């Protein structure tokens, strides 16, 4: 897979000395969905704004489709669609006209059929003649997506696409994004909702304090860092791990015994563990396994960084 976006040593220092990005390196593969996770103020939006041309980089370079975003900004930007975090819209403008405007602004000939297709795919066609101020927040966000797609970009940046969107719309939005991926659009999304990254992304990038601390395949990341735990419920609650079992990697939590293991490993040690518990004369009443979520992984990574 080729890299469609290449970010090299990108640094953004503001006039007041604050460094929002400190030498970011990131390659984005064509056709993937990559989620950038990070706490507030980590530099997610600055990164996107710099790639899209809204913010000027202090150092480093970015290419999109091989075109430098400064030297060859026309070709680079033609390939990019941006859905910003805030739902800023021209209140008095009609949906269909604002989408046509975006297409024109990006140098494309008017194409009513394409605009209709985009609006239909986002369930906006019925609202095409509504003024933007008449739309709900979720609908406005869809309009922003439609505007970003109006010039048929190959790379789409979604900055917190589901912030402030209710659960149902969020799921709809995920469907929309998956549909775009199927059409071959590369998608970069930033999010606070780890659930979102977990549900959609092929790769996860973690950004913290202006640096990318990790980029990895989501599944591999979860496998690598995702520990599984076995929770053993006992007939009689225990305060601490019984003496007979102290040589095992066990902890006592809330009266239960908790065993951490790597589910990918050939030898999980579960059979031996259960035998030893039985031999120790403890009676088990229930067993549960739990995979740590991306959220837990994320929190532990950001903590390590701090």
């Amino acid at each position, binding site marked *: 897979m080729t890299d469609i976006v290449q970010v090299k040593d990108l640094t953004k220092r503001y006039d007041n000395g604050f460094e929002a990005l400190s030498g970011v390196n990131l390659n984005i593969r064509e056709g993937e969905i990559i989620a950038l996770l990070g706490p507030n103020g980590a530099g997610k939006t600055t990164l996107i704004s710099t790639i899209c041309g*809204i913010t000027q980089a202090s150092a480093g370079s970015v290419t999109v489709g091989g075109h430098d975003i400064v030297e060859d900004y026309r070709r680079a930007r033609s390939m990019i669609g941006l859905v910003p975090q805030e739902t800023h819209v021209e209140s008095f403008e009609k949906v269909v006209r604002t989408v046509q405007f975006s297409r024109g602004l*990006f140098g494309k000939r008017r194409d009513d059929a394409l605009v209709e297709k985009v609006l239909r795919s986002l369930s906006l066609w019925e609202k095409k003649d509504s003024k933007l101020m008449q739309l709900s927040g979720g609908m406005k966000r869809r309009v922003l997506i439609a505007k970003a797609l109006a010039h048929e970009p190959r790379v789409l940046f979604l900055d917190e696409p589901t912030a402030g969107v209710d659960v149902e719309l969020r799921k709809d939005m995920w469907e929309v994004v998956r549909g775009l991926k199927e059409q071959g659009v590369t998608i970069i999304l930033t999010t606070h909702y780890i659930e979102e990254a977990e549900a959609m992304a092929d790769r996860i990038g973690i950004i913290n304090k202006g640096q990318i601390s990790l980029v990895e395949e989501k599944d591999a990341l979860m496998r690598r860092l995702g520990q599984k735990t076995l929770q053993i419920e006992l007939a009689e609650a225990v305060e601490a791990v019984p003496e007979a079992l102290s040589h095992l990697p066990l902890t006592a939590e809330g009266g239960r015994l908790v065993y951490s293991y790597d589910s990918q490993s050939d030898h999980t040690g579960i059979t031996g563990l259960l035998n030893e518990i039985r031999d120790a004369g403890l009676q088990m009443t229930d067993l549960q396994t739990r995979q740590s979520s991306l959220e837990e992984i994320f929190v532990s990574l950001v903590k390590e960084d701090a």
Partner: protein
Amino acid sequence: MNLYAIKAIYIFEMSRFFRTLWQSIVSPVVSTSLYFVVFGAAIGSRIDQVEGVSYGAFIVPGLIMLSVMTQATTNASFGIYFPKFIGTIYEHLSAPVSFLEITLGYVGAAATKALFIGSVILLTAYLFVDIRIQHPLAMVAFLILTCTSFALLGFIIGIWAGNFEQLQLIPLLVITPLVFLGGSFYSISMLPPVWQTITLFNPVVYLISGFRWAFFGTADVPVGLSLLAIAGFTAICLATIAWIFKTGWRLRD
């Protein structure tokens, strides 16, 4: 050249104008009529001809200039300030457009609106006074140049302004006084000699003088100088805008 972008911005700006077309027409017509009633009929009847032209007719070019300069400036400044204010400017900044294309779209639309209003005022003037335009082509050329150059100035103001007060500050504090003191309602030759010299530092004098020459064939300063002044003013504005987009001043972080 991204012609579709220029067209998109131009159409977008013009559609806002057409949404409020009646307000756009009524206000200049009413204010022009008031000027004619006050200066033309009430005061003008006591003033002799100025440079062989009745006073009512003499003030027509100045009145048109006053409106055109104010309209061009405010329309262009509002046009670019508004997306900055509501945040939709992100789209312009991330689009494959050059500064020239954005400027052409906004300034073209603002100049068109000002030209339209200038024409409305001229037509209104015909209701009150008898005017014969000696150099119609030059009149149109001066009008277009003034609309364009002041729209460029307005564009700069719109980028500079940090709030709505600042947006109105320059037209109110700079343009209106310069136009009033630039010979809109009098000939410079009517001033005492010292003020005649001071007045020559007012750039608007050259614009009004040239415009009036196109109407009546008389001018305070040579027409060539007027053209030169307009060209110089336009060049300064264009250079400023080019610098703004190069550095991202007040636009890009």
